[in-house]
């Protein structure tokens, strides 16, 4: 009988034997976690997220003993547990203008730490009378390059563009606006940017309004700027 002693996946304990168990279960269920080597690398994380997207509204990339994902993978002899849904290729699933996606879909493109913090951030702002919404979470590198070519951005790669090596979105940044104002002067006049900055920093996020050399008041991110090169490398770009 399959068991795991500790959690596996994003931010988890990842005991090698537990990771091997999860890798085998994922493979049985039709996902590709790579070689069952006991290491929770990008391919295994991608497979966990792909698995969770089939039944969880907010995938977190983590499997806990007796948690929902564990039960889903092991119920009735594993392979039968999950419906055989063919996962669309990243290009199809994540194509188009990501600013037009639903709030849930935008949330699902964030890496787990950011994804766990943004809903609370939105709640805090709502309680203060604002009407916050996520404008951008993930955005493709192709879109980013187009913005640069059109003189609309000065960066070729940002935390918005992070992805797993297979192309699955894994954004470390989100742009949050009040849907009545966007970037109009009223957003500042009504105190929205200041409120966003405070709420973001209260939950441990970085706020682009603090960047004196080039402020980005709608922007929050879960990593410091000095991690950008590392994130690009991990994105396989």
């Amino acid at each position, binding site marked *: 009988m399959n068991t795991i002693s500790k959690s596996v996946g994003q931010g988890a304990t990842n005991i090698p034997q537990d990771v091997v168990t999860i890798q085998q279960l994922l493979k049985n269920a039709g996902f590709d976690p790579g070689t069952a080597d006991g290491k929770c690398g990008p391919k295994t994380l991608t497979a966990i997220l792909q698995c969770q997207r089939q039944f969880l509204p907010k995938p977190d990339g983590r499997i806990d003993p007796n948690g929902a994902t564990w039960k889903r993978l092991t119920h009735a002899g594993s392979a039968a547990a999950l419906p055989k849904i063919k996962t669309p290729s990243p290009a199809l699933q994540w194509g188009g203008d990501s600013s037009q996606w639903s709030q849930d879909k935008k949330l699902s493109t964030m890496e787990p730490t950011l994804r766990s913090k943004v809903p609370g951030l939105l709640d805090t702002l709502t309680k203060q009378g604002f009407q916050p919404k996520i404008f951008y979470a993930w955005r493709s590198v192709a879109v980013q390059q187009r913005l640069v070519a059109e003189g609309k*951005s000065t960066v070729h790669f940002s935390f918005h563009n992070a992805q797993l090596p297979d192309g699955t979105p894994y954004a470390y940044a989100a742009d949050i606006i009040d849907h009545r104002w966007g970037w109009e002067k009223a957003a500042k006049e009504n105190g929205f940017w200041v409120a966003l900055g405070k709420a973001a920093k209260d939950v441990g996020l970085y706020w682009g309004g603090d960047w004196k050399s080039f402020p980005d008041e709608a922007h929050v991110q879960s990593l410091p700027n000095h991690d950008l090169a590392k994130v690009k490398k991990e994105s396989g770009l």
Partner: protein
Amino acid sequence: MPACLAWATLLISYLLAAPSPTVKWLVIAASSPQITPALDTIRTLTASWPEAAVIAGKDCSNLSPDLYLAVVSLQTDRAAAQSEATRLKTQIPDAYVRACTVRPESRLQLGIPLLDASIGKVPGDAVNWTDADRISQVISLPEEGHLWIRRQYVSDAEDPNEGRRTAVLFFDHSVSETHQLESDCPNFSYSAQAGFIAISCARAVAGDDLFHTIDVFERSGLGKIASVERCRKPQISDKTLSCEEEQVGPDGKLRLTTKQVPLQSKL
């Protein structure tokens, strides 16, 4: 006088009157269509050639405009250049000498380095640096004077632009007498007319686009007389600044409307 003879006489008169172009002899260690390889070559040679620098082929009217040259020495005399090349060949066997007809009003003619000294310190793993972020430029203004677009690197690990800076400086004739107009001006553009210089710089991110600020300076004295936020594409005529006012609403799309600002001299 036949027409062709008249033209020939005119041409000869012009050639005699025009100053002869300056020719410099370049001692070249390497050339490349990209900045970074030329800069890497310079780094290996500065101990022996402290004056070594990267020069743009574009600054020489007779050389390929698409090449960057790692130059260890720049001589007015061909023999001196050959002598330097002989010394360089002990380290770089492919080193060579090439004449450069210095383009008037170019960086090379005005004494502006193509690469600021700070550019050599850009980290090797920087993500968003391109050649265009490294190269300084010079612009000759229509009513005399120049703008020096000086691209620099500022070491700050948490800088959202990875330390990229674009300073804008003004000088009349000599780079030894410059006046800084902007310390950092991403997405630089300008307009200069009627004794005014308007500089447009990107100042913030907004949706799918950027917000700009236009600063207007008097050509005489270089005092700032106006600063217009959220406006781009400056045009000056009849003591009026015209620009396109920027608005970005909840849909993230940029909307532009024409704005006019009368300019009042403080002199």
